[in-house]
């Protein structure tokens, strides 16, 4: 089955979601990320959703769960690049993504995670 690739940069894990995910794929990503946080001793996770034109309650919960699990494993998560239409829809849907830090783009996301690149 296809998997969403996870890149590693030092103690940071980077995921760029570029496909329209079906539920199983989203669950697989959640499992993979959690496993990699442990195996790579990651301290930060950056999830780039700038290519996603849709985030529904399942994907939203996947993101929340991933962030929660990361926190338990002593890593911080930042979600970047949420499109305005998606944000408006999530607000209307009532999904708050509490406990998930967000940033406008990868650069700002990295800054939030304490990684500044000159």
């Amino acid at each position: 089955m296809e998997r969403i690739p996870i890149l590693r940069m030092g103690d940071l894990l980077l995921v760029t979601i570029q496909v329209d995910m079906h539920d199983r794929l989203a669950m697989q990503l959640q499992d993979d990320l959690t496993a990699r946080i442990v195996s790579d001793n990651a301290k930060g996770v950056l999830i780039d959703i700038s290519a996603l034109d849709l985030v529904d309650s399942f994907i939203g919960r996947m993101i929340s769960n991933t962030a929660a699990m990361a926190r338990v494993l002593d890593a911080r998560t930042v979600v970047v690049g949420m499109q305005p239409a998606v944000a408006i829809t999530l607000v209307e849907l009532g999904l708050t993504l509490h406990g998930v830090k967000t940033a406008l783009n990868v650069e700002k996301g990295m800054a939030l995670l304490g990684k500044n690149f000159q």
Partner: protein
Amino acid sequence: MSMKDYADRISQTILDQEAAIAAEWLAQLEALLVRSNAAAREQLRSHCQQFLKAFAGATRSGELENIEHRSWDEVRDLLSEISATRARSGSTPAETATFVFSLKQPLFSRLRDAFTGDADGLASASWTINTLIDKLGLFTITVFQKTKDQIIVRQQQELLELSTPVVKLWDGILALPLIGTLDSARTQVVMENILQKIVDTGAIIAIIDITGVPTVDTLVAQHLMKTIAAARLMGADCIISGIRPQIAQTIVHLGVNLEDVITKATLADAFVVALERTGATIAAKRTA
């Protein structure tokens, strides 16, 4: 006499007497023209001629009741064009419908001649033509209204674009002064604009200044709250500034929860807060 026979006789009458019918019709319309200059008269004449030709062609097809039928496509297209042109140049819907209705008189007098000695036939034909022209007249009114609506929508959009300016106050800080009354539809568009500008400029703070907004109702307040929630989901934040005493009263009265939103009385105050949030400060120059 079958419907087809009527149709043939009517269309033949029109074709035979086209010039005379057109002249009479034109004379009636010119009498109603408010602005009678050569260009207006010329356009009118052109419209009349085109319409008569199309009308005759359509009646010849035999369909005299259903103007949505294929054979009336050309007539409807022509009427749409005429109606739209008049809508854009400031005619009233009544004037445009009159264009069609005033064809009755010249047509009826020609029909009288064509059906001499056949009183029943004349009555039938007259009634058919009467109803037909009524339908066409009503059609012009519908088209007229649609065109006017389109013009209004376009004007509204242009107005909307003018009234949601965006000012980049500093790196990462946007100011969005909202001006004028905010209705539900407008607020939604403004909302989407604000969020798009945040993405486009990479702003992390958007100061929404409502000094220029006279009243805020529940719907508008809700939309503002949703905008702020959406901005936060995206990774930015909003400050509301310019809340005048009356609006503050309304907001409290409506029970809108502003607990986790920063609000400031003036844009300047909001700017200072925004600067602090982005880690910048304003320092006075030391004089030697």
